[in-house]
């Protein structure tokens, strides 16, 4: 990889430097567009609601951030619900990474009777709207006595079709058959092939799936809203959505402050995972 980057770099230098500048200009415009709503959220979280809805729009930060934080903490148990979110998102991410990558490894690199049928079934499952399952799932959870506990959020999410589909597509390209054959000749059994050959190669793919799963769980609010019946025992998104509805007129400054603060753990997870993901998404094991 290093050598190809080297050749690219030398080519760039004796190629057109102007094209490089135009390229970066276009990329920076893209970054600004991606980042702008975050800037806007910061602006909103530092103003009162009446300041937010004034004309012309405020483009610079105001002075009401701490006030917004205070009214946020007065209205919801911010850290309690944040702990619940961390518990759910953390456990689900761990379980999904394990179960999905294991299943994807099988689908990507092995042949067995019924494989095609099972994979088609998986793809159909992926397309079933979550709403189709919501009402009956609630009935089942109630029978199991899980309603109101985090188990109702963690167990059904512990493996998913999306992750298996993604990891399979990724593994098909990233794990070379020669490498697997070599490890088989070394006498590695299935689990060793999975653990010592497949996993190290697909780390960037796993990091991506991990971030994506954590995010999805962290930001999910439809199912937690239904399943967590005890108002003292909710996840952060549900707590935030309670801010949005109950008070008639919404205090946008406070809601935005909550949304921004709810982003902090995500950004930390992202920063940790991004290093893995960015390592090189397409890095193979054979150099």
């Amino acid at each position: 990889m290093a050598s190809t980057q080297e050749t690219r770099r030398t080519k760039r230098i004796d190629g057109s430097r102007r094209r490089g500048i135009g390229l970066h200009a276009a990329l920076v415009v893209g970054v600004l567009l991606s980042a702008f709503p975050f800037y806007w959220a910061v602006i909103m979280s530092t103003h009162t609601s009446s300041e937010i809805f004034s004309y012309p729009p405020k483009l610079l930060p105001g002075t009401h951030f701490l006030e917004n934080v205070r009214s946020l903490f007065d209205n919801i148990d911010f850290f309690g619900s944040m702990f619940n979110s961390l518990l759910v998102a953390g456990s689900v991410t761990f379980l999904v990474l394990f179960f999905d990558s294991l299943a994807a490894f099988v689908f990507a690199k092995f042949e067995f009777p019924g494989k095609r049928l099972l994979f088609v079934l998986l793809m159909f499952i992926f397309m079933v709207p979550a709403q189709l399952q919501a009402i009956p799932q609630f009935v089942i959870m109630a029978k199991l006595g899980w309603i109101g506990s985090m188990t109702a959020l963690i167990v059904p999410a512990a493996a998913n079709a999306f992750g298996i589909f993604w990891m399979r597509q990724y593994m098909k390209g990233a794990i070379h058959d020669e490498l697997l054959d070599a490890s088989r000749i070394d006498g590695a059994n299935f689990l060793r092939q999975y653990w010592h050959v497949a996993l190290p190669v697909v780390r960037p793919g796993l990091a991506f799936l991990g971030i994506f799963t954590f995010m999805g769980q962290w930001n999910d609010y439809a199912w937690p809203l239904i399943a967590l019946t005890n108002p003292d025992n909710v996840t952060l998104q549900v707590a935030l959505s309670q801010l949005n509805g109950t008070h008639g007129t919404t205090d946008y400054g406070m809601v935005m402050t909550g949304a921004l603060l709810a982003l902090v753990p995500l950004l930390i997870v992202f920063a940790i995972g991004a290093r893995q993901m960015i390592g090189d998404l397409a890095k193979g094991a054979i150099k």
Partner: protein
Amino acid sequence: MATLRTLEKPSAVVADVPVTRPRTGFRKYWHLYAAISPFYLLFLCFGLIPVGFSLYLSFHRWDGLGPMEWAGLSQYQYLLSDSEFWSSIGTTIVIWALATFPMIFLAMVTAVMLNSAVRFKNLYRVAYFLPNVTSVVAIAIIFGSVFSTNFGLVNAFLQAIGFDQIAWLNTPWGIKIAIATLMTWQWTGYNAIIFLAGLQTVPSELYEAARMDGAGPVQTFFRITLPMMRPVLLFVLVVSTVTGLQSFSEPQVLLQNTSNDSTFSGGPGHAGRTMVLYFFQQTFDNNDFGYGAAVAWGIFLVVVLFSIINWRLVQRRGEE
């Protein structure tokens, strides 16, 4: 690599391989089935049974509390003639198309640019992925304020360059464009990162060969990059279709305060009422769980049909 530690063994093992009697059937494959079983077991308990129940439900009338009442196929008959359901399909597809095609185009362009940029590549990747990290609740609130008629940034900008205000969240096309913009913003960077992963699996020898044959950048893109990216493009298209056609949170949060009759109404004139919003409206506003289940099955059929069409289109293009 840990497996290489047992380097002395191979010769013996190699000799063993052809001698091993071929095991048959389940004994030979049990570990593979065991490895994929967690997903299918979970699906059985929390997927298949609920799905079966919702099928059962769709043949009944049920308000969620009282006894169920057999309704036969009448829910489905009504669904077929329900003009509101059909218009929600139209709304969903229009929003999906408005969001997906610009998104895939922009993502592809971004990925190709990122792939040829040498400096700051990692920084760009992080920046482009960020929109996807934020919760839809927060994004919808932000975009609601950006597209606000009197105080919104978009209209402030339009006025500054001499145009009239547009009531974005109050007109049929304005609503659709606002939702599609939100979705495009949220997913372009995500898909660009996926495309980039695909671009990097294209062997550089192919590009060298193309350059030697005198192919220009455009030719190279259509003859080499695009065909090689087929699995990734397929992934992006299928995921965009499945998630895009099931969009719910975006219109719900964005439009929940713009109409008085229901939080699931999809704004004035139901212009943003997607299929899933319609499902929620029928199920929870009308307490019509049986018809809601029938609507959900209708949604499922539309999503499957659309995904198959997309799948076929992408695969055929690759075969040429």
